[in-house]
């Protein structure tokens, strides 16, 4: 930028000294100088302008909210007067340590995360393996696998609430056929968590299956052929060829699913009918996301909600670190 100034200066000096009849040529020079200056500016700054939208949006909607949430978590702030902030230091965090509702929510998040992620990924792997065979209408099955993912959380959950209904739910009706009494899905600790997990599994299995499928198609066919020549069955091929080749993909889906499970919100919220963010009469399926929502938007304590949000962020960072370590171990192993 600074180099432009000297380039402009002589042309101005020239103008002052120039006789009248040469004014045309001087104007030409000036125009040329301006053009080259513009060209240099263009080359230098255009790339920044092209990438700027991302950074502007990231600053406005990513970094700023993150930092502001951190700032708010150090204050007592109420939604009734969001501009009145009273400094409390780390109080909002230290109280989480003795907040049994927080620990309950964390425990629920972990258990629901486990009973939804593990079966989900196993089923996805199986489905992907089936879809990987040459079969009639494979396109149809692939799209079908993805449809639950395209359904809105709200719509899916509302249907599941009806399915899991205590008195008139279809699942209890089916269980009744084999002589099992009505189960109060929503009120039991395990039953409610199982029901919430079912919704998660239903929505995300196809999505993960397609990711696995994409990775499976990159596995060279020779490996299967030589395995087949060695007399390996389909199952043995799956275990000894497919799964090892998918190691990195599986790790990736594990991480993504774990992050998703940590942030679980819509399913447990709507599974509670219209009762809101309590996660059941005994908070039996209140996740961290729900507790955050309850503190911020029901109880109107923005500072405490911000502290929970940051705790969740830190938990995710830990998960990220574990992932990085695992990935390093895996690539060393390979």
């Amino acid at each position, binding site marked *: 930028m600074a180099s432009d100034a000297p380039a402009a200066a002589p042309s101005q000096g020239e103008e002052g000294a120039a006789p009248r009849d040469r004014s045309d040529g001087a104007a030409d020079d000036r125009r040329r100088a301006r053009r080259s200056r513009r060209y240099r500016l263009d080359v230098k700054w255009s790339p920044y302008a092209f990438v700027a939208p991302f950074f502007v949006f990231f600053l406005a909607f990513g970094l700023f909210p993150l930092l502001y949430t951190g700032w708010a978590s150090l204050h007592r702030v109420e939604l009734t007067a969001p501009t009145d902030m009273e400094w409390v230091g780390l109080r909002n965090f230290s109280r989480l340590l003795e907040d049994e509702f927080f620990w309950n929510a964390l425990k629920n998040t972990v258990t629901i995360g486990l009973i939804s992620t593990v079966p989900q990924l196993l089923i996805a792997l199986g489905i992907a393996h089936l879809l990987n065979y040459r079969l009639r209408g494979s396109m149809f099955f692939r799209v079908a696998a993805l449809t639950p993912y395209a359904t809105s959380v709200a719509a899916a959950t509302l249907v599941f609430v009806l399915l899991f209904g205590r008195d008139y739910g279809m699942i209890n009706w089916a269980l009744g056929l084999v002589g099992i009494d009505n189960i109060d899905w929503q009120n039991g600790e395990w039953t409610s968590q199982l029901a919430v997990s079912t919704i998660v599994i239903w929505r995300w299995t196809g999505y993960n299956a397609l990711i696995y499928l994409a990775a499976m198609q990159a596995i060279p066919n020779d490996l299967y052929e030589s395995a087949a020549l060695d007399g390996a069955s389909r199952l043995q091929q799956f275990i000894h060829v497919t799964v090892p080749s998918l190691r990195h993909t599986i790790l990736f889906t594990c991480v993504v699913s774990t992050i998703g499970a940590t942030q679980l919100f819509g399913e447990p919220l709507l599974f509670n*009918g219209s009762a*809101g963010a309590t996660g059941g*009469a005994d908070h039996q399926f209140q996740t961290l996301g729900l507790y955050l929502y309850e503190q911020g938007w029901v109880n109107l304590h923005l500072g405490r909600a911000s502290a929970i949000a940051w705790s969740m962020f830190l938990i995710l960072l830990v998960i990220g670190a574990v992932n990085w370590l695992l990935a390093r171990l895996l690539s060393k192993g390979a």
Partner: protein
Amino acid sequence: MRRAVILAVVAALGAGLLAGCAEDSDEPTGSASNGGGGGKGRTTLTVGVFGAFGLKEAGLYDEYMKLNKNIEIKQTSIERNENYYPQLLTHLGSGSGLADIQAVEVNNIAEITATQAGKLVDLGKTEGVQKDAFLPWKWAQATTKDGKTIALGTDIGPQGICYRKDLFAKAGLPTDREAVGKLWAGDWNKYLDTGKQFKAKAPKRTAFVDSASGVMAAITGSNENRFYDKDGKIVYKANPAVKEAWDIAAQFATEGLTGKFQQFTPAWDQGFANGTFATVSCPAWMLGYIQDKGGAAGKDKWDVAAAPKPSNWGGSFLTVPDAGKNKDEAAKLAAWLTAPEQQAKLFAERGSFPSAKAAYSLPEVSGAKHAYFAGAPIGQIFSKAAEGVPVQIIGPKDLIIAQNLADIGMLQVDQKGRSSQQGWDAAVKAIDNALDQ
């Protein structure tokens, strides 16, 4: 061919996604911004409400637009007050995104009056507002200590007990609404006794009442003192009136008189449709809900009798935020919408009971009968209840206290079979945490 199929599938999925998005985006759109002109030199007024508020459905907007050719009214509605209220607070805090008129639920009105009065127009001074037309306690609820009235009352929720005549007959109880009212007149414990009688001879798989929480809400609504005392201190833990309401409601649960439902859930709706419970505490606005969920099969089976004691549950207000561009026009509209004549029309069309006392003598109210409820003279039943409702002390966190008592404490007793004491302790713990104590 193959490509066409893929395109079609992608398009279908895309449409599904869009539909999914559209479903969630029922938020009010920037209303203050289009304040000035609604085309053709008309002023557009926006009204933000929650649930099926009924102003629009009762045709009041259309009527006002006919009377005032320069006004156009648009309404945005958010289904549940829990989602509506925090959004209203954020919008008030930032002074943007507000509708010209914003509705407020009675459980939130004390908090709004205490914390947001500076951001709302003093409607007490608006031309055409008749203070004397309103029930005095309704007027007082939205008036600050220094005499600023920041909201005008729309409806209130005087209660009766809705009951199924067919189930009462099968259980050997009277079915005439006068006689039924006498079964429990004056004492909630008699309501409990009636429940025990019902249970002794009740048809299989039917319960006397839908939920213990509903009973508790009805009883606390009949007390002058509830969760706060006159000085604004939270006293629900020690208040004998709350304790009594709790104990009676808990007995409904422990005696097995309830259908173990949680109110306003799909299962509860199915309970109405299948006639699995015989009574429900029934504010005036609940009649329409029962009619919706009960469907044609319930017609003439339901009736409504007087509650043991006059009691109030729910009701709403209209406010005009200061940040709006059409404050004066909005205040005029709010005054018109809450005038006795309009409240009477709202009652006739939607069953929202007027908070304007002056409306009770209007024919739309005094002569009102509900066809679905066997032609019950609901105007008279609810007028009588409304006039007997005590002037209740309300506080800023009423909603949170009531919600946790019902959805945590009483629900544990009712649905999970915990003891009354365990349920109470759980509720107190949750409330302490919610109130930051």
